[in-house]
């Protein structure tokens, strides 16, 4: 089993960036109908999202701005960063790894390792685990974990299962060695048999071509072969059964319980689903912060977005201290995982907005 208890590693800070443009659910009244939209908001819980759209801001751009903020506010020497991991399913290019481009854009050392990880909803948990494995007592270096998803085409979707659900976001997290603190504990799993439940079937090497024309599909959605397909029922079933199992298994392995955490940052899949998971686990509402109401489902960015948003919303009530947090990611793959860590409220920065886009002078 993929169980890891990684000591001597801490999160030094988290910063997040979203595009400037806010798209409200009401803007879909005309395309999807008022009843459908209102019911969606009430059930799924997404009132608005930040979308890049015409600004052509990409995941890499949002992660870049989040990383710049973190490096400046934490006064980090760029030479100290020994590893850069980018978790995304919306890279700038198919080739090369976008992490390499970001090593260059951020002015990091050539001694820094860099690679991309293709994971979504579970990606931040996997990213933290991977980042932590690069930290050793004899290396003074820090690790930069970037995670998020954004795509300019998102605004054009009319697939009613997704059009109002997903938001764009990029995040940056710095990890470093520590003698103190509780380290990180991880439990990671994969259920690849469900790979078809959430898939972009065409444009890769299995099916390079496909129909660009949008048609009405058997599941009632309207999309083309290059748009992502989601089997909502399958994902919903997977989440409400596997997440509580994972949660209980994790706590049993590490002898922990919900009382040991200040809050649990769940991947922000769907409010109805999260409320039911909370009910099954008997989690009080205040232990399960929600950010999807204003940011939507932001894929691998949703856990850090939820953490920074939590401290921003509860700014007045939060004591200055380290908080014990559990992060739980689940979805596309299908892939799932839990990790626990500590964060300080003062270094989980307010979410910034940006429309800055990198000019690569290629085309």
């Amino acid at each position, binding site marked *: 089993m993929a169980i890891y208890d990684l000591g001597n590693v801490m999160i030094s800070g988290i910063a997040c960036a979203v595009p400037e443009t806010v798209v409200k659910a009401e803007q879909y009244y005309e395309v999807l109908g008022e009843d459908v939209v209102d019911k969606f908001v009430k059930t799924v819980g997404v009132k608005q999202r930040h979308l890049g759209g015409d600004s052509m801001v990409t995941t890499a751009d949002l992660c870049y701005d989040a990383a710049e903020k973190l490096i400046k506010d934490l006064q980090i020497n760029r030479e100290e960063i020994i590893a850069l991991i980018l978790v995304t399913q919306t890279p700038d290019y198919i080739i090369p790894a976008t992490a390499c481009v970001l090593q260059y854009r951020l002015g990091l050392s050539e001694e820094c390792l860099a690679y991309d990880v293709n994971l979504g909803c579970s990606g931040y948990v996997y990213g933290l685990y991977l980042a932590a494995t690069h930290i050793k007592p004899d290396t003074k270096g820090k690790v930069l974990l970037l995670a998020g998803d954004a795509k300019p085409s998102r605004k054009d979707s009319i697939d009613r*299962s997704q059009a109002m659900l997903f938001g764009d976001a990029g995040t940056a997290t710095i990890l470093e060695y520590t003698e103190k603190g509780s380290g990180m504990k991880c439990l990671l799993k994969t259920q690849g048999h469900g790979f078809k439940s959430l898939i972009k079937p065409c444009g890769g090497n299995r099916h390079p071509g496909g129909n660009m024309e949008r048609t009405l599909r058997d599941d009632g959605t309207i999309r083309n072969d290059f748009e992502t397909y989601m089997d909502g029922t*399958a994902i*919903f*079933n997977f989440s409400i059964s596997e997440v509580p199992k994972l949660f209980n298994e994790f706590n049993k392995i590490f002898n922990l319980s919900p009382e040991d955490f200040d809050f649990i940052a769940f991947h922000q899949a769907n409010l*109805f689903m999260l409320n039911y998971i909370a009910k099954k686990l008997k989690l009080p509402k205040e232990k399960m912060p929600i950010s999807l109401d204003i940011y939507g489902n932001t894929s691998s960015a949703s856990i850090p977005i939820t953490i920074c948003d939590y401290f921003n919303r509860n700014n007045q009530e939060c004591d200055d201290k380290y908080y014990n947090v559990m992060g739980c990611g689940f979805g596309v793959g299908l892939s799932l995982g839990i990790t626990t860590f500590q964060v300080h409220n003062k270094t989980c920065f307010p979410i910034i907005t940006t429309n800055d886009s990198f000019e690569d002078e290629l085309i």
Partner: protein
Amino acid sequence: MTEKEKIAMLEEMLELDEGSLSPETSLESINEWDSVAALSLIVLMDEEFGRQLTGKEIKDLKYINDILSLMEK
């Protein structure tokens, strides 16, 4: 659980008045039956009957009676 109780449960789930559903009611005729209601049904089946519905099972539902049969399995 009696059939009456099960139907009452479905009426509550769909926010319908008591007595508005019968085993013969077709789902097509219920305005409230949509993809969101299907999620509620998944939750109800999981919570009350410890049973996981598949997408195909949901798609194949035509009448309230079909749901009642699933509750017995």
